[in-house]
């Protein structure tokens, strides 16, 4: 791995825990909150944005075509997407890893777990993609990740029109929400199951409490 990148990455990670004394300005970048809600439409659109842009370089090696029904894609849509791939094949980047390695000096990371692999991962992804800026003429960098190799694929830094910018903002949030799902596809099942388990335990504990109180009432 390239030495400067490594150093930059170290600096970035240091800045994330915001305790380093020698971190660069990026330490001051505050993660931005997502205002879109998690719903089928946003997840679905987030997927298509991923599919059209991010997927040029980034794999989702733990997501199979068949999983996409969870973000609201129909069987027909999945069949169109996968072409000759099987339903249990995983989503691979369009660019072969060797080509990507040549272009960026590094294989772009898999995104399946990105939303979990950073603190506040969903917000991190959203902030990262909207933190590009023009450093000097036609040279771009990222406030959150100085020296990032990924280009500003959403063209956030060069979009002037506030309406267009707002649209990009929305699409980036949808991608972040989609990647949050990709990292934690059982979230909805987990949360709905939790309601039942905890409600049950509360009933049981309450019964145990009354039983305990009655048994102990036998003692003076």
């Amino acid at each position: 791995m390239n030495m400067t990148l490594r150093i930059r990455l170290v600096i970035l990670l240091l800045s994330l825990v915001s305790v380093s004394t020698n971190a660069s300005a990026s330490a001051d970048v505050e993660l931005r909150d997502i205002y879109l809600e998690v719903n089928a439409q946003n997840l679905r659109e987030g997927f298509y944005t991923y599919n059209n842009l991010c997927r040029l370089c980034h794999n989702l090696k733990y997501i199979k075509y068949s999983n996409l029904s969870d973000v609201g894609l129909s069987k027909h849509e999945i069949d169109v997407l996968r072409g000759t791939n099987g339903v249990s094949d995983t989503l691979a980047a369009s660019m072969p890893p060797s080509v990507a390695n040549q272009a960026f000096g590094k294989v772009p990371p898999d995104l399946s777990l990105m939303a979990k692999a950073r603190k506040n991962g969903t917000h991190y992804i959203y902030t990262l993609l909207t933190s590009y800026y023009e450093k000097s003429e036609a040279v771009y960098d990222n406030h959150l990740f100085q020296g990032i190799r990924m280009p500003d694929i959403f063209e956030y830094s060069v979009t002037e029109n506030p309406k267009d910018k707002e649209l990009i903002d929305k699409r980036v949030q949808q991608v972040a929400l989609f990647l949050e799902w990709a990292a934690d596809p059982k979230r909805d099942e987990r949360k709905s199951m939790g309601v039942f388990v905890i409600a049950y335990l509360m009933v049981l504990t309450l019964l145990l409490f009354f039983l305990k109180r009655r048994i102990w009432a036998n003692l003076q």
Partner: protein
Amino acid sequence: MNKLVAWIDQRFPLTQFVKQELTEYPTPRNLSYLWNFGSLAALVLVLQVITGIFLAMHYKADAKLAFDSVEHIMRDVNYGWLIRYMHSTGASAFFIVIYIHMARTLYYGSFRKPRELMWWSGQGLLILLMATAFMGYLLPWGQMSYWGAQVITNLFRATPFIGDQVVIWLRGDFSVGDATLTRFFALHYLFPFIIIAAVGFHMVALHYVKSSNPSGINLQAKDNIPFHPYYTIKDFFGFGVFLIIYFVFVFYSPNTFIEADNYIPADPLQTPAHIVPEWYFLPFYAILRAIPDLFGGVVAMALSIIIFAVLPYLDRSKIPGGARYRPFYRLLFVVFSIDVVVLSYVGAKPPEGGLILVGQIATFMYFALFTALPAISIYEEKWLRRRGLPPEVEELITAEENQRDIREGKTQS
């Protein structure tokens, strides 16, 4: 049914055992909810063993497959996410329960005579638990897993003369690798059974000396109540409360106890910028780092755990019990607790600037409190007697002395 029990009773003391050790087992009536944490620890142990066995059915202890197999459990195995999150949350729950159990023992002086063997076996259990947790943490094969194991196995370099060989032997490789992962998995599966055996010892000792209680002296027979139904129901109620809190974390915040970096597969060529051990190791980790020398640091860290063993001998006071009737001891307990919190905080932060000094002062305090205990406990007793002991404490001491006289009278005759 009765016939079957009778048949067994002729060959095995089943009814007698259940009566003596469970239903009629005499227990002090004045135990607070702090005495629930022993049975809670047993509950967590059972949960960890069960979830662990089911995880092992899908996990692959191979450096190339381990990370993926955990994701396989999380995504493909039916309810795999539930079992995995129960296991990872259970590890932290285990330490919370055990640390409260230990704090109670310290506060009420439950480690004092005649419970030294309980205290020592408990300490052995803690060390076994730490080893099991440490080896289990390697298994997901994420960045924190990998570098945690790398750093901790490196501690053994402090072994005199053969340090480097010991480290290589532990890892089965020149750095943490596939061989390390496989042996950690084997031992992580084995250790819980050693823990269960050690719990057996802990229980036999407990049922021989009986439970301590908040007053600090052994109660008269009249103050005991049968374990069942009083403490069975109280323990079950404690289980209910515990499980609610536990499952709130499992279902709604399962990644609280998992570092984000551990969702990045292990990379032997790149250390995460900021390595932290699991929260339950933080105070000891802070002590390790406070000493700017490998050997010294390792010795200090080992000592910080082992030193608890001599506690029954460091406490020289004749006043029974722990902090309840002893203001100085209570103060020591409070200062010690704060010190451990400070150490945890320091352990969680990178060793920079003023924090290094804070860590060193806290480490000094940690050992100073132990060292000062004999003198303080002797002085405290004199001070208490000079001021006149409260009548109930006087009574307790007399009762204790009477009991001792009876015991010694018996041994002489």
